[in-house]
């Protein structure tokens, strides 16, 4: 066990799976490298997640593409239909808008509309979320949209340990998986085993436990929620369950419902805008299935209904933070 960043943990996961399964390949923009005057020049991904793969496996399995998202996803899905295990990289989740058809009309539907005669085991990795002052077109989350599509699985890790185990599970999974990597967390570190391990989909993590309030959070909002829970415990003696579903689809409903049955109070946190998102989804789930367990109205903490702004002050004001989560918990306790 050593301390590793999420970037390195993801890189290890890719190396493990490349070594384990010759059907695995990586395709995307700048993921590999090229030869200049017969000498290999490695790029290894804009965020360095695919470091070393091009050098080790060459361009047959680490495929740099033109800036053509629809072709990247089509190429990955077609190869998956023919028995390979593609990992496609879309640099920013925002850019899935360019290849939305290939993901939601094609990949998500193949197995169903062809009557179960095929599988499409493709993983689409992408960076997600705000916090890097990247502005309105490079900071969106997009995982709520994809969670609404049957046929897709959706993963959002919140730490390096989960990222590695979940990516390995994603690559071994028989279904299409959209894997969202919160870009601000690439440098965040924690203990990560050197060997390969997998974390099952549909099983939430609970980084904090407590009997007063349930907090459900996704991606980097998990870390804000943990900070909020620690602060509340220290300063006010309030104890919170912090639930990180890890996979919005399939969703671990049981863990959420059990926790709410015990606490009677729910705060849902995500950095996406408020409408038609995961916070509304979890709130609806609990209102529908556990209304009588509730002792107070459900509170949500989200970004406002605006695009993601660029300037530091603006993005700071836009994103949720521990202070707002603490305020929501206090309201839920009122």
């Amino acid at each position, binding site marked *: 066990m050593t301390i590793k960043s999420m970037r390195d943990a993801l890189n290890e996961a890719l190396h493990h799976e490349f070594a384990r399964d010759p059907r695995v*390949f990586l*395709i995307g923009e700048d993921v590999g490298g090229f030869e200049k005057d017969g000498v290999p020049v490695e790029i290894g991904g804009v965020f360095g997640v695919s470091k070393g793969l091009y050098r080790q496996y060459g361009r*047959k*399995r680490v*495929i740099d*593409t*033109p800036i*053509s*998202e*629809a*072709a*990247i*996803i*089509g*190429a*990955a*899905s*077609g*190869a*998956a*239909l*023919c*028995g*390979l295990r*593609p990992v496609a990289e879309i640099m920013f989740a925002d850019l899935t808008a360019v*290849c939305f*058809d*290939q993901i939601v*009309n*094609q990949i998500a539907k*193949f*197995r*169903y*509309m*062809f*009557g*179960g*005669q*095929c*599988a499409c085991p493709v993983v689409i990795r992408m960076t997600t979320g705000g916090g890097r002052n990247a502005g309105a077109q490079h900071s969106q989350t997009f995982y709520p949209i994809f969670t609404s599509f*049957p*046929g897709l*699985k959706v993963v959002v890790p919140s730490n390096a340990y989960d990222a590695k185990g979940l990516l390995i599970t994603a690559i071994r999974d*028989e*279904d299409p998986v959209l894997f969202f990597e919160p870009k601000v967390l690439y440098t965040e570190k924690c203990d990560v085993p050197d060997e390969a391990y997998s974390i099952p989909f*549909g099983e939430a993590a609970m980084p904090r436990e407590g009997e007063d309030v349930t907090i459900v959070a996704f991606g980097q909002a998990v870390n804000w929620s943990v900070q909020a829970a620690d602060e509340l415990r220290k300063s006010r003696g309030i104890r919170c369950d912090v639930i990180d579903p890890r996979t919005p689809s*399939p969703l671990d409903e049981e863990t959420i419902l059990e926790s709410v049955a015990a606490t009677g109070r729910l705060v849902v946190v995500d950095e996406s805008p408020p409408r038609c998102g995961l916070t509304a989804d979890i709130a609806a789930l609990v209102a529908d299935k556990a209304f009588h367990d509730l002792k107070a109205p459900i509170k949500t903490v989200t970004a406002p209904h605006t695009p993601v702004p660029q300037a530091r002050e603006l993005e700071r004001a836009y994103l949720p933070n521990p202070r707002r989560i603490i305020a929501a918990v206090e309201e839920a306790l009122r």
Partner: protein
Amino acid sequence: MTRDQLLGAYRRLRLLREFEERTRVEFQTGQIAGFTHLYAGMEAIAVGVCEHLTDDDKIISTHRGHGHCLAKGCDPIAMMKELWGSTEGLCRGKGGTMHIADFSRGMLGANAVVGAGAPIAVGAALASSIMDASWVAVSFVGDGGTNIGSVYEAMNLAVVLRLPKIFVIEDNGWGEMTPIDNVAGNRDLAGRAAAMGMPAVSVDGVDFFAVHAAAGVAVSRARSGEGPSTIVASAPRFYGHHEGDPQLYRSREDVAELRRREDCLPRFIDRVSTSGELTSAELSVVDEEIALLMDSAVEQSKAAPRPTAENVLQDVYVRYR
């Protein structure tokens, strides 16, 4: 081509035509639900290309896909059952007319989004390249699809990676109800493909032998690792964009004239009869055989089991929870 090959090609041309004629009749009686797009008039393209392919080769088709499925060897009875929505259909009633697939035949799906099959077929060609396999991949796209960006993304990627891929552009002159002449900045569709960096030829899509020859070159080029190419084949669409299209944009006389002048079947028969390669008796046997097959397909489809509400939930995932 040998006599057997010629007879096989004729059988498929006739099968494609009669399947569509029969589908049209049954659609009009209300037996078939959904947006149905008939391939009649364009048979020589699908058959001319697919005669070069084996079950290992992959194709992806369009919303007008019945012809490609049949040319690639899909079972016409299971296809008709799919049009009927039966659980014995090729896709168990989940796909219908626009989503017929048979992976055992290398038919990776008809596709209802214009142009969307091109990038996916590039993926099938990429798999062949990565796995050092010998199969090639073909995408069929209509002239309307040449105005979709992802088709050019697919062409460029196939060229860059030198993949065993054939782009077949079926030019019937109409993108739904709009003439291609009105919406193509450059009407030279082969020129547009060639500009992406690959060989591209235009052929008369009514002439089976012209398509067959061009496809032979493209397929052997792809198989020998020389990369992708494009074939633009023009042929008329005998019916509307979809069944129920009143075709206000062209006259009955124009369509009748097209049928007289531009029908691939008489053209084929003429050629093989004149050369003495096939006799009219041999061709008639095929015609009767296909007519009986269509009767049987419709009878079996009418009697085939229907899906139930539980089927809605099946086959969304391999495993979800």
